[in-house]
């Protein structure tokens, strides 16, 4: 079993928002980190955790495209605590749909979404401690750099 490919992720998000979304594997990570959204998934029947860690500018831009809201406003609303429902719901849906390309044969269910990684419980929390379990992707939407998405799992 292998992790999702950049091609599969690009295809999925491009279909979702009807704009060119390009994922490419990142070998080096930027020094400055953006605020992140963490989506925790569980494969069935194995019960294996997978985490998608998405930079807020990326996932807010996706949410904005889904509901017709400019990216800067979606980002502003996504940064509130608690996150505004108007962007929380489309972000959750985008991450829910992302489950379709995270594992080849297994069923994958989105179990939680949070901006606070301290809320992620064992066994998924173990993935955050192992940098080697992450596949990192740079994401560009319609030619604009929107940050990083990392997929953490035991593939």
């Amino acid at each position, binding site marked *: 079993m292998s992790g999702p490919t950049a091609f599969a992720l690009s295809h999925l998000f491009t279909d979702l928002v009807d704009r060119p979304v390009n994922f490419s594997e990142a070998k080096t990570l930027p020094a400055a980190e953006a605020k992140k959204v963490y989506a925790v998934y569980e494969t069935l029947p194995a019960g294996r955790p997978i985490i998608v860690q998405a930079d807020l500018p990326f996932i807010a831009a996706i949410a904005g495209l889904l509901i017709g809201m400019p990216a800067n406003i979606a980002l502003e609303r996504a940064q509130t605590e608690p996150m505004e429902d108007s962007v929380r719901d489309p972000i*959750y849906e985008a991450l829910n749909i992302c*489950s379709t390309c995270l594992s080849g044969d*297994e*069923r994958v269910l*989105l179990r939680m979404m949070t901006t606070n990684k301290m809320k992620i419980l064992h066994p998924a929390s173990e993935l955050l401690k192992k940098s080697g379990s992450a596949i990192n992707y740079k994401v560009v939407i319609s030619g604009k750099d929107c940050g990083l998405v990392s997929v953490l799992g035991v593939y």
Partner: protein
Amino acid sequence: MDILLVDDSKTMRQLVKRALRQAGYENLQIGEAGNGAEALSMVQAEQPKLVLSDWNMPEMLGIDLLKRVRGQNCQVPFGFITSESSEDIRETAMKEGASFFITKPFTPENIDAALAPHMSK
């Protein structure tokens, strides 16, 4: 009512409605339910011509909604639109009497291909 959309996500209901319009179903009367219980009472009261439901919803799964609808001897065309993509889930849906199964993300073309045998524009 022509189509009853069942999804706990308001965003997803809006996206499906937009895709329906883009697919040419803009003149249909579309009702919305945010959960299975609400959908069940709307099926009884409004008698939609087609039900389009999510699979994973709190309180009542889409498959349980389908079973309850069929349990009332209601043969309304019932399709799923879901992020579930496994073959097992699809087979379960079809065995229980689903008319079609659309995997998210969907396009207006996917929607049209699934609905066309059951719905006129």
